[in-house]
């Protein structure tokens, strides 16, 4: 009896004849060598199955192939909801939005620059017009932001078509008269001005255009308001407007505001120890906030990730959202992020046997979010947050409870505990991938 042949037939799944089977089993009882052969063969087959199952190509190899063919990467059997470049484009757009908001979050610094630039010219004895070398001369938006941030004598002034140049100039005339700042500070201020100028040039015309969207519109010149507009935009800072030179019509409102602003300058000067006055609560000029979130969540079943879908490494475990201030404490917006989600599902191997498969693909999710923020007198602002959306594979959701910490009117940091889940479908069976964790980040309000 050729036991080796019987063993091969057994391993190949060929049914043995009854006598042959009896012989084989009898031989296995008596021969340790044969038992070892059988054990070795079975182990080899088992290892081969495991080996093939573990042979899923690494993500970078899959990427190489699909990139070479001009396709998207990492097939998982799921259809993409959004075209391939979205991840890249979203990253670019997010970066642009963040850059814009970051740039716009320096009102105090720029106002200092503008103020100091003006005051410097005052000390030199020239007229209080924006120095050509100072950032205040860069354009009207600088002084607008100055007025926006500080207003007159430290009061908050809502943006409007008043003469920002004039307001700033007069205010700083007052500050200059008291010698509030030393020349060295001025030098730093001019250095800052140069920096701002450099930053602005770097960010280019796109940001300038964006910023202009929030500039107060100056009404078109007409016979009735032309002098007023000229007074706002072109007159020297120290040149007081001609009182009542324009009829009190709606078109003349800018001039009237300018006059009221001028009147404010007649009030007591800002204290010397705080030339800027107290920081007033800053109301958002646009009811928008941008949030950058880092996500540290986990699933006890997590397995090493072998699949990637549209992965952008820098965006791993992060999200970015834009939220709109609907009402007191209520914010709605959109958010997108990228995380790995554990999946476990039944599949069939090459032999048709049902097996359990695990994978941990990185998925980009998108969603609409609602946030309820509770204002408190302290710097802490508790919030509840919910996002409903989806990934490339199915619906997804996220809830979080946490708190903001108010660093300044424009900047908050936050932390929250969160639960999230994605769903996926394999064949006709749906599965879910729940996670829990902690998220943290920055919130820039503008």
């Amino acid at each position: 009896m050729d036991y080796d042949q019987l063993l091969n037939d057994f391993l190949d799944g060929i049914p043995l004849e009854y006598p042959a089977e009896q012989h084989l089993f009898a031989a296995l009882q008596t021969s340790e060598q044969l038992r070892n052969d059988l054990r070795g063969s079975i182990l080899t087959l088992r290892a081969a199955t495991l080996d093939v199952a573990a042979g899923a190509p690494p993500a970078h190899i899959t990427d190489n192939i699909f990139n070479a063919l001009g396709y998207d990467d990492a097939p998982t059997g799921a259809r993409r909801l959004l075209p391939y470049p979205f991840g890249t484009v979203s990253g670019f757009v997010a970066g642009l939005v963040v850059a814009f908001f970051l740039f716009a979050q320096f009102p105090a610094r720029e106002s200092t620059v503008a103020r100091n630039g003006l005051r410097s010219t005052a000390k030199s004895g020239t007229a209080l017009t924006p120095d050509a070398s100072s950032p205040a001369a860069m354009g009207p938006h600088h002084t607008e932001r100055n007025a926006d941030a500080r207003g007159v004598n430290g009061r908050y002034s809502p943006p409007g078509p008043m003469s920002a140049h004039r307001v700033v100039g007069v205010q700083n005339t007052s500050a200059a008269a008291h010698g509030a700042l030393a020349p060295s500070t001025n030098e730093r201020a001019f250095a800052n001005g140069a920096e701002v100028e450099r930053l602005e040039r770097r960010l280019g015309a796109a940001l300038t255009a964006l910023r202009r969207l929030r500039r107060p519109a100056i009404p078109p010149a007409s016979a009735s308001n032309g002098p007023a507009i000229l007074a706002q935009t072109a007159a020297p800072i120290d040149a007081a407007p001609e009182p009542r030179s324009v009829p009190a019509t709606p078109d003349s409102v800018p001039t009237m505001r300018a006059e009221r602003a001028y009147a404010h300058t007649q009030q007591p000067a800002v204290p010397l120890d705080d030339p800027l006055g107290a920081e007033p609560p800053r109301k958002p000029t646009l009811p928008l906030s941008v949030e950058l979130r880092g996500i540290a969540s986990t699933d006890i079943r997590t397995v090493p990730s072998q699949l990637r879908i549209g992965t952008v490494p820098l965006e791993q475990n992060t999200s970015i959202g834009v939220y709109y201030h609907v009402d007191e404490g209520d914010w709605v917006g959109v958010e997108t992020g990228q995380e790995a989600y554990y999946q476990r599902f039944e599949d069939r191997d090459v032999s048709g046997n049902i097996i359990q498969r695990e994978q941990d693909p990185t998925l980009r999710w998108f969603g609409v979010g609602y946030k309820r923020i509770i204002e408190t007198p302290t710097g802490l602002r508790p919030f509840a947050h919910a996002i409903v959306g989806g990934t490339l594979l199915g619906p997804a959701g996220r809830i979080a409870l946490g708190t903001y910490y108010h660093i300044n009117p424009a900047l908050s940091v936050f932390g929250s505990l969160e639960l999230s889940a994605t769903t996926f479908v394999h064949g006709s069976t749906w599965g879910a991938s729940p996670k829990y964790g902690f998220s943290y980040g920055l919130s820039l309000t503008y």
Partner: protein
Amino acid sequence: MLFGKHIEELHRLTDAELFARLRQGRSEAEAAFKELYRRHAARVRAYCHKVLDRHEDADDVFQETFIRLHASARQERTMTNVVGFIFRIARNLCLNVKRRRTSGEPLDGLELSEGFEASLENGELLRLIACAVERLDLHLREAFVLRDYENFSYEEIAALLDTTIPTVKSRVRRARKKVRAILAPNISELD
């Protein structure tokens, strides 16, 4: 859900139907290629890694195999055995690599590539078996891998290797015997 139906539709298609779709529009071709890749990538890669000693070569061949599969779809042909076709591409590429390395590679220091070992508990067993497979002659190794790793039938292997079924059976049997012999000193420690 729409994408659920889409997935099911792809899963229902045969390999031949998917291969035919590679000649259609970009989106259809892309979906078909992804499905073919999903079905066969792990097997093809395992084959390449078992047949070639160097894992860098194996991954290169694996990538080239699927790129050539895609390119071959441009030619008007009726494909009935796509799996066999893929493995034939892989085999030819592996043989090319083997021919370029006629001097042979030292067998010492054979290592399992990342992914073949790290994610498995049976790392030691896999390492032993991998070393045993590496020590087989190429014609035995091919038959053994295609039979025990890729689960091809003897008929399919014979067609793939351009030989007869009895020859394949003989090679598989001899290969198994050699692998067992290499594993024998350690077999009692493995379970």
